[in-house]
């Protein structure tokens, strides 16, 4: 019995909680990918840099706030900085749209053209981020780091395995659920959200119905900015901010959005969980969990780790390839409906 409990605690602490947190972070990012694809009809390669820029802005604002003596007590000050970074990033996105994407919308450019333009935006943003905050990693979490510490849990439960719950994990899961609930409510229950979905569904009919396209585009970028800052900051609180690591988030975010079906917000969330848990489960060393959970005779000798953690991007890539081959429209995509 204790063995089973130990095994479950070990899995919760090392796989399930990190997986939920990582999946939530991906979901917030993938929702942005899918919104841009659904409403503006292109795949934005600059999306990961958007997360990165949003986080960099948050870090700078947080440093300034801390310099002025502002603190949220047990919670990280970045939560406050984040709120100020959101409108800034929205302005950056809307500015980029005005300067670049709007022109290509007016000449009715094909989606591939937009994609290449977004690759250019990615390179520019990448450079701007280096200028603004440099390339070094930064840890910007302050406040209380753990809700449940390893020692605290062991003393309380008497189990050999510790359960660790980081503040950042709890914040990530809680804020992600809240943000998604707000987003879905906005899309399904408000006039503006409905207009946005109508515009994504059938642009010409939406225009005839009286939808103002400029307003929809602006609204989309504002939503994408809010989601990007949230995703970036929560990822950064959890794992630290490193510009190069953020660049690499592009692949899992796209894999998640494609698995769920590009353009489908529900799909983006489900796809993110699939990608996050696949990545973690395939690179997880199962030895300890199996030793606890299997009968004594069957305990494994090796690490029981299918892939080294360096190969985690191969998992996203593999999922992307499999989905595109087997079900290109994704789980909730239009063709599957």
């Amino acid at each position, binding site marked *: 019995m204790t063995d089973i409990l130990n095994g479950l605690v070990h899995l919760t602490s090392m796989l399930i909680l990190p997986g939920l947190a990582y999946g939530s972070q991906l979901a917030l990012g993938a929702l942005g990918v899918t919104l841009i694809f659904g409403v503006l009809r292109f795949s934005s390669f600059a999306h990961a840099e958007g997360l990165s820029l949003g986080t960099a802005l948050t870090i700078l604002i947080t440093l300034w706030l801390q310099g002025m003596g502002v603190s949220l007590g047990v919670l990280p000050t970045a939560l406050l900085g984040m709120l100020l970074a959101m409108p800034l990033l929205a302005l950056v996105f809307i500015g980029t749209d005005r300067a670049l994407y709007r022109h290509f919308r007016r000449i009715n450019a094909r989606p591939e053209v937009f994609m290449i333009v977004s690759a250019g935006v990615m390179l520019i943003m990448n450079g701007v981020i280096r200028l603004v905050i440099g390339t070094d990693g930064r840890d910007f979490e302050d406040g209380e780091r753990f809700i449940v510490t390893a020692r605290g849990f062991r003393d309380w439960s008497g189990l050999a395995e510790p359960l660790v719950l980081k503040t950042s994990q709890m914040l990530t899961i809680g804020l992600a659920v809240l943000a998604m609930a707000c987003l879905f409510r906005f899309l399904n229950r408000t006039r503006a959200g*409905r207009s946005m979905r109508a515009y994504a569904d*059938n642009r010409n*009919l939406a225009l005839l*119905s*009286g939808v103002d396209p400029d307003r929809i585009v602006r609204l989309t970028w504002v939503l994408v900015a809010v989601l990007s800052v949230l995703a970036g900051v929560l990822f950064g609180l959890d794992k630290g901010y490193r510009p190069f690591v953020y660049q690499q988030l592009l692949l899992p975010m796209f894999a998640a959005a494609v698995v769920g079906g590009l353009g489908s917000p529900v799909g983006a969330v489900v796809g993110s969980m699939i990608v996050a848990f696949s990545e973690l489960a395939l690179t997880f060393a199962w030895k300890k969990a199996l030793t606890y959970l299997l009968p004594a005779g069957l305990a494994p000798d090796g690490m029981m780790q299918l892939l080294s953690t360096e190969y985690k991007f191969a998992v996203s890539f593999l999922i992307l390839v499999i989905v595109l081959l087997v079900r290109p429209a994704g789980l909730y995509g239009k063709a599957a409906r």
Partner: protein
Amino acid sequence: MSFLRAENLTGGYGGPPILNGCTIEVDRGRIAVIVGPNGAGKSTAMKAVLGMLRLTSGRVMLDGRDITALPPQARIRAGMGFVPQTENVFPTLTVFENLQMGALLRKDAIGDTLDEIFALFPILADKRHQPAGQLSGGQRQQLAVGRALMTRPSVLLLDEPTAGVSPNVMDELFDKITRIAAQGLAVLMVEQNAAGALEIADTGFVLVQGANRFTGTGRELLADPDTRRSFLGGRA
């Protein structure tokens, strides 16, 4: 002058003109049908009435007011309802949301109009929470018409409302369109199913190469052997 009158329409999509001075008109409570061979400019004439086309000459009058300079959105605001031939619903939105989108331009309560539309198309009331993409072809056409009626237009423009639906559904749709006209709307439609449409039409406009060839009541055109042979499927 008729309630809606588009006269001497000339223009096209930038290349050679597709419309060559045709005139189309319809009064409230009446149904007018534009028929003609393929490429005669039937749909183009309707697009011109809605303002989706740059005219080189001609004008469109609605209730005595010259609306030639207005863009399509403004014409819808002025009282035109338009049902495109294809892609005329929002497939991932529910039936109810589609109707709400139809009423986007309205600022007042839409409850009464919804009731009227559900009375006219009871199937829409039954399926109000289903995504429009899951409806059958005929149901989708009914939704498209219902959506266009949400602005309470005085003119309803229908671009081939029966394209791709079965004969039964076609008869039902024509019946509904007759009822809509009876409520006092001016109905103008383009139809490939000329024979069926002329049955319910008060006026038929036969277009050939963007110009009026024959104009008459639906019965007259159906009875005329020339028109029958040339444009109504050759069953003279």
